[in-house]
């Protein structure tokens, strides 16, 4: 008698099967999954959830699995923002939520830095850039507030098991070219709905060589690819990062450290599981698992023109376009590695007098690390103005950009009017490209500008 051979599964299928409590799942099948962690922010969270929970007379299924981050409307700028933020703070206190991060940074970066996302988990977020969690080998996707209400009440969510689109990047990126360029290149090739709400898996030597912050940029902008999730198989880089973040918490934030150290220990225990959280070689031949191959070594910096991230071409196509504002911000484009990239270009130099360089670090922890390394000083010496570690101008909720300005930005989206004014022309580029363009007052290839 022979034992049944387990069906070959992609990483996405394995993550979903575990959360659905079954041995394996097939693409197209609709399953119900248990949520390990649910994250929401001040805009999508309390102000929408509280009235609905009150109407139902229902309680949160498991507060230990809920993370609230205040990032969209902080710092408060007007009465409406103050009201939204007050609702969030009051509700967090009334509910006695154990995991609340107020004005610490942008949710996708903060939940990862605080150790709430680990390999093998199944998570949801009340924000479209929630696929960021996929960088840690977790299945994470964005949902709206009503669907989050369903999760709060039941702890479950339905899912149609996705096919897998593997984006295999071979070779090695050139200096001055980074994850943001890879992503804009893929979005231009496949379009903003090219992911067809399936699971994208980034793989290949160039992806394995990326630091966690860069991997997070890939997973983050899976949203702009129209994928449900953007996964990267966890490896030694993933675990080393989780442990380092926990150590940092222990050094600087004594109050929260023990909990995070516990979470890092849990991650260490999953070292033994790492070989499991990979796409099985046998599933690569399945019609439900497509592989697209790219050569990282030939990739030039990429810029997306107004008003779509899919409107992207090599930087040389737009070189010379005069800009007024250079913006380094957002979960996509202002993590520590993004700030380092900008400093790499700006060290010992000053931006053009016609340009306003705005820097809004993605989190307080990134900002403080950049300060300790001297990166922040390099940016400020170059003329950068520092803005709060929040979503800021990216979504047009906080600081907004003026009419008729031409902007180059390290953020994720350049829809018409997104950053506040319908007449603003927003170009997207990597932090290297944004910094190089700030130096010269016009869109510039950063490869000739590395200090």
């Amino acid at each position, binding site marked *: 008698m022979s034992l049944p051979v387990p069906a070959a599964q992609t990483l996405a299928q394995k993550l979903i099967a575990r959360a659905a409590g079954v041995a394996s799942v097939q693409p197209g099948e609709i399953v119900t999954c248990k949520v390990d962690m649910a994250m929401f922010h001040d*805009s999508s969270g309390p102000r929408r959830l509280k009235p609905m929970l009150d109407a139902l007379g229902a309680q949160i299924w498991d507060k230990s699995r809920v993370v609230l981050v205040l990032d969209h409307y902080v710092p408060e700028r007007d009465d409406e923002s103050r009201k939204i933020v007050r609702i969030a703070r009051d509700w967090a206190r009334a509910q006695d939520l154990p995991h609340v991060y107020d004005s610490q940074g942008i949710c996708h970066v903060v939940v990862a830095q605080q150790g709430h996302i680990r390999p093998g988990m199944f998570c949801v977020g009340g924000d479209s850039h929630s696929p960021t969690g996929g960088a840690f080998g977790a299945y994470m996707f964005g*949902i709206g507030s*009503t*669907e989050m209400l369903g999760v709060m009440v039941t702890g479950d969510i339905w899912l149609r098991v996705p096919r897998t689109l593997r984006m295999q990047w071979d070779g090695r990126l050139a200096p001055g070219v980074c994850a943001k360029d890879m992503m804009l290149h893929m979005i231009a090739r496949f379009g903003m709905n090219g992911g067809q709400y399936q699971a994208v898996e980034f793989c290949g030597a160039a992806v394995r060589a990326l630091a966690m912050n860069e991997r997070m940029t890939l997973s983050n902008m899976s949203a702009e690819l129209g994928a449900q999730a953007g996964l990267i198989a966890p490896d030694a880089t993933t675990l080393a990062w989780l442990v380092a973040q926990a150590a940092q918490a222990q050094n600087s934030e004594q109050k929260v450290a023990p909990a995070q150290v516990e979470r890092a220990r849990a991650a260490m225990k999953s070292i033994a599981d790492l070989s499991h959280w990979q796409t099985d070689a046998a599933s690569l031949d399945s019609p439900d698992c497509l592989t697209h191959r790219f050569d990282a070594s030939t990739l030039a910096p990429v810029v997306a023109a107004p008003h779509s991230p899919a409107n992207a071409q090599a930087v040389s196509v737009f070189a010379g376009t005069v800009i007024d504002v250079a913006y380094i911000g957002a979960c996509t484009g202002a993590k520590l590695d993004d700030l380092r990239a900008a400093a790499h270009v700006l060290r010992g130099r000053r931006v053009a007098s016609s340009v306003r360089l705005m820097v809004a670090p993605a989190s307080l922890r990134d900002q403080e690390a950049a300060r300790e390394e001297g990166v922040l000083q390099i940016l400020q010496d170059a003329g950068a103005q520092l803005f709060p570690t929040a979503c800021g101008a990216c979504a047009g*909720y906080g600081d907004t950009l003026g009419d008729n300005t031409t902007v180059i930005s390290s953020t994720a989206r350049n829809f018409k*009017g997104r950053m506040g004014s319908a007449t603003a022309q927003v170009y997207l580029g990597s932090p290297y490209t944004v910094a190089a363009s700030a130096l010269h007052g016009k869109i510039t290839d950063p490869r000739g500008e590395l200090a």
Partner: protein
Amino acid sequence: MSALKPLAGQGARVWRLGADVDTDALAPGHTMKHGLDTIARHCLEQLRPDFAAGVRAGDVLVAGPNFGIGSSREQAASVLVTLGVAAVIAPSYSGLYFRNAFNVGLLLLTCPQAGVLQEGERIAFDARTGCITRGNGEPLTAEPIPDFLLAMAGAGGLLAQLQQSITSRKTT
């Protein structure tokens, strides 16, 4: 409790939009601090400035591929319910928008031939069968919608459904 939502319509007037209509066009960022009544006044202000004031209950939106790309803000779907839009018909949607729409009780019909429908045309549709009938009688077919999503939209969305299930649990 939300009213029951009709899953079919007749004489529905068509509003035509292009491809890649994003969530920021449906629910502009500058209105997101406010309630749905305010967001509704600015819905599609960049693409169809005549829409918010001119749309009537029972009208349908017909768009090109990739409707609803962008943000997770479900107000981009709720606002169409507020404005009385009976259904959206397009060849494809952002997956996140698709979930949000049914969660807030907005019907989305996925129809590869949506592009033939004309501005101002009067059509009939039935989300249960996927049948769309043009003003000239020409039939079009929309992809089938899973029963549990039709039930959710028919109940007026997930909140209404949860309310029903909690009420029935309390009374039995």
